[in-house]
């Protein structure tokens, strides 16, 4: 850009000044936005039912497809967790749960929830639906590949679910799939189960790569006029950074899956050391099990942030809209997201403190782990400061957001404990760890998902979800989730190990038995409480009141489509032109308490607006 251009555009030169509305500053030039760089996107419209609803190229339909498939796997994961809690709380009550079954439930619950539920839901579901709408694009940049991405994910889920029905059942190696035990006799599902799991993971990575390319390039190259990176909603920033992480972290998962598949099928020894089994030396030898742990966690730790960063982004937008206040420290929030993303590649070995690593290695990873707390804490402060003196609407969406902040802070603080090697070693593999990661990457992102469902349901379906049912849903889920995970910290402190089928007459369990029964009961209630949401959606679709356009009075572009719900192409004849960030709420002097991103400077010249 030349200086000439800067003068022409007008906003560039005055960007940091506050313009006050005397009218003198108004000139036709101030609304200038650079002409379109991208040609109008050539969209392929569906011609048949199959093209419209099955092999659809519209990112919004693909997003809903991703969402529903992910929710289906999530329900399977929820049922598995019920079965586990049934065994833990009331051992022996359900006779069909053997130790092998229990391990299979643990494994499948973990893998499903982390990869097939949360990742697919945030990036595939919310990403597909919201990215084109929020950046003002007609669709993703390569809709056909985007469609393939979903169907690859669908096949991955089908293969994963098939492992429940093969001889030996699904793998029971724990979701981390540590070799050598994963593929050796004695581990449940060491035959077909683990094979299908590895194949499914590889398919998932391939499918995700196709989607991820679309998300990244749509955000980088297909924004509408006036939409600079620093005017994007934080939702888009969160999903974008998470996608970058996924594109760089999933390769490690793919490679470790391929290598372990070969270990299993061809008898190579990438991860297999010399092994004595019942006095007999196995064929394997010379491999390194620790190598798998490094590869797995090089994927596994960024994976935590692949789940968390979209949640951070979405919750920032929800809080801002429902507190009627601009997000506090927008730039800080963006850089915190990017910083967390970058740091997340340098902390993976904190999952391996007990693998026998060199203490200096542990020292390094403990340091980087604790450094991540800085940008994360900044984000929490900024959410609080956004709420501070805001015009808060205590509706269902806001309740979920507040629930998120509480559970996330809770899980974050226990993370400080576990990040230190000397504290982690005694707590390692206890229920304290279970409580920590469920709080921080299970419940907290789930709170955001729920809030996002209540927030964007009017956009997707055109109807308002029932507030009363929503509040029941929130309070049972929030209090119930706390009843599940808060006592688990205590179980961890008294040394109850995780992944144990039964504690029998262990001396640990004198005070733990009643607690386990309590936790299990709470888990049953919380799981069942999700039916409130299902009922709410069914009821709303049948009898709910029709949503007006932009019911929350939000600023971002997804609410300014030509029709609600948006049609293929999103914005009708003309793409919107963006003049400001999406957080202009309660601007002094404005008639309404919000200024949409499309409001031109000349329209709001009488207000005191910080031009962005």
């Amino acid at each position: 850009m030349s200086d000439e251009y800067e003068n022409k555009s007008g906003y560039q030169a005055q960007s940091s000044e506050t313009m006050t509305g005397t009218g003198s500053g108004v000139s036709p030039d101030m609304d200038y936005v650079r002409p379109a760089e991208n040609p109008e996107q050539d969209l392929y419209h569906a011609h048949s039912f199959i093209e419209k609803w099955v092999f659809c190229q519209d990112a919004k339909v693909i997003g809903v497809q991703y969402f529903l498939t992910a929710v289906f796997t999530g329900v399977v994961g929820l049922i598995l967790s019920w079965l586990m809690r049934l065994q833990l709380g009331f051992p022996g009550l359900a006779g069909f749960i053997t130790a092998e079954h229990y391990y299979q439930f643990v494994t499948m619950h973990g893998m499903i929830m982390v990869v097939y539920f949360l990742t697919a839901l945030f990036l595939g579901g919310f990403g597909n639906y919201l990215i084109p709408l929020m950046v003002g694009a007609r669709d993703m940049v390569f809709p056909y590949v985007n469609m393939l991405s979903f169907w690859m994910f669908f096949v991955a889920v089908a293969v994963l679910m098939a492992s429940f029905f093969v001889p030996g059942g699904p793998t029971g190696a724990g979701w981390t799939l540590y070799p050598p035990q994963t593929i050796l006799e004695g581990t449940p599902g060491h035959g077909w189960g683990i094979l299908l799991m590895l194949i499914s993971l590889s398919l998932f990575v391939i499918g995700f790569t196709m989607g991820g390319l679309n998300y990244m390039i749509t955000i980088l190259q297909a924004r509408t006029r006036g939409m600079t990176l620093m005017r994007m909603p934080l939702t888009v920033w969160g999903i974008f950074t998470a996608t970058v992480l996924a594109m760089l972290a999933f390769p490690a998962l793919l490679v470790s899956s391929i290598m372990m598949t070969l270990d299993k099928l061809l008898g190579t020894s990438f991860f297999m050391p010399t092994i004595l089994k019942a006095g007999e030396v196995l064929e394997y030898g010379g491999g390194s099990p620790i190598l798998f742990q490094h590869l797995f966690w090089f994927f596994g730790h960024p994976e935590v942030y692949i789940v968390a960063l979209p949640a951070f982004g979405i919750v920032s937008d929800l809080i801002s809209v429902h507190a009627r206040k601009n997000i506090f420290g927008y730039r800080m929030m963006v850089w915190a997201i990017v910083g967390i993303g970058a740091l997340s590649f340098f902390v993976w070995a904190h999952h391996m403190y007990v693998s026998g690593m060199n203490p200096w290695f542990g020292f390094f990873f403990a340091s980087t782990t604790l450094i991540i707390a800085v940008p994360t804490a900044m984000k929490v402060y900024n959410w609080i400061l956004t709420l501070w003196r805001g015009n808060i609407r205590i509706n269902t969406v806001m309740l979920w957001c507040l629930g998120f902040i509480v559970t996330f802070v809770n899980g974050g603080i226990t993370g400080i404990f576990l990040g230190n090697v000397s504290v982690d070693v005694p707590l390692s593999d206890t229920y304290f760890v279970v409580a920590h990661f469920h709080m921080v990457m299970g419940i907290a992102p789930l709170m955001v998902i729920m809030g996002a469902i209540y927030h964007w349901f009017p956009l997707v379906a055109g109807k308002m979800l029932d507030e009363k049912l929503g509040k029941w849903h929130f309070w049972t889920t929030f209090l119930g989730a706390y009843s599940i995970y808060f006592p688990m910290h205590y179980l961890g402190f008294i040394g109850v190990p995780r992944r144990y089928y039964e504690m029998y007459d262990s001396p640990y369990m004198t005070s733990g038995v009643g607690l386990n029964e309590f936790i299990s009961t709470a888990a049953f209630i919380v799981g069942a409480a999700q039916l409130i949401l299902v009922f709410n959606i069914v009821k709303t679709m049948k009898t709910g009141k029709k949503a007006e356009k932009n019911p929350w009075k939000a600023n971002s572009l997804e609410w300014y489509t030509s029709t609600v719900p948006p049609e293929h192409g999103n914005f009708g004849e003309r793409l919107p032109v963006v003049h400001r960030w999406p957080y202009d709420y309660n601007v002094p002097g404005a008639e309404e308490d919000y200024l949409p991103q499309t409001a031109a400077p000349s329209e709001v010249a009488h207000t005191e607006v910080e031009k962005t």
Partner: protein
Amino acid sequence: MSDPKIEGFELEKGFRGMAKDTGSDQTMFKGVHWGKAMMWIFLLSDTFVFSCFLIAYMKGRASTPVEWPNPSEVFALDAFGVPVPLLLIALMTFVLITSSGTMALAVKYGYERNRKMCGYLILATALGGLTFVGMQAYEWSKLIHEGVRPWENPFGAAQFGSFFFMITGFHGTHVSIGVIFLFIYCYKVFAGHYDEGKRGWFTKMRGDYVEVEILGLYWHFVDLVWVFIFAFFYLW
């Protein structure tokens, strides 16, 4: 080829120019075709895949308790009765790098709308790739005849065969996929699909010579990766 002149402003060079592009609206990489940007990002991701493979190989080679086979002996080829180390592999590398050259020329002629030259050069590239895969198949069968298996080999550490077959196989798969697409693109160029902007069979997107460049990016990447595999497997 990307045109640096976009309506409204000229591209500024250097770090400041990059910062301004990043801070501007609509596109971050000015004038870059969407598909081309996607290919670059994909290649970045694929770089991580190959890096993981090669790092795993280094770790495996460093930590195996049995001695690693000597590559100059294992990969030697008998030429007129004399074992010449790395002969076959040198030929393979030469063919592959040459095909990169023909690919670059194909891109140039494509943008010049020289349909025939572009098509022939893509064909040459495809044949080069095919030759490479053929020679690789020969090398594999030779090693298999000598008793090298993914799980064992007569020369030393079992991991040698494991890593060799896995990594060269993974790379060979990349080359093969590239060859398939080169033949398809060769047909499309000769049929004039890119000149008239005919819509793709599946994607329904309008054809353009930029697709040749995008495939070229992939092809150059596959060649570049080969250089690293060559260095780590045959020269180490």
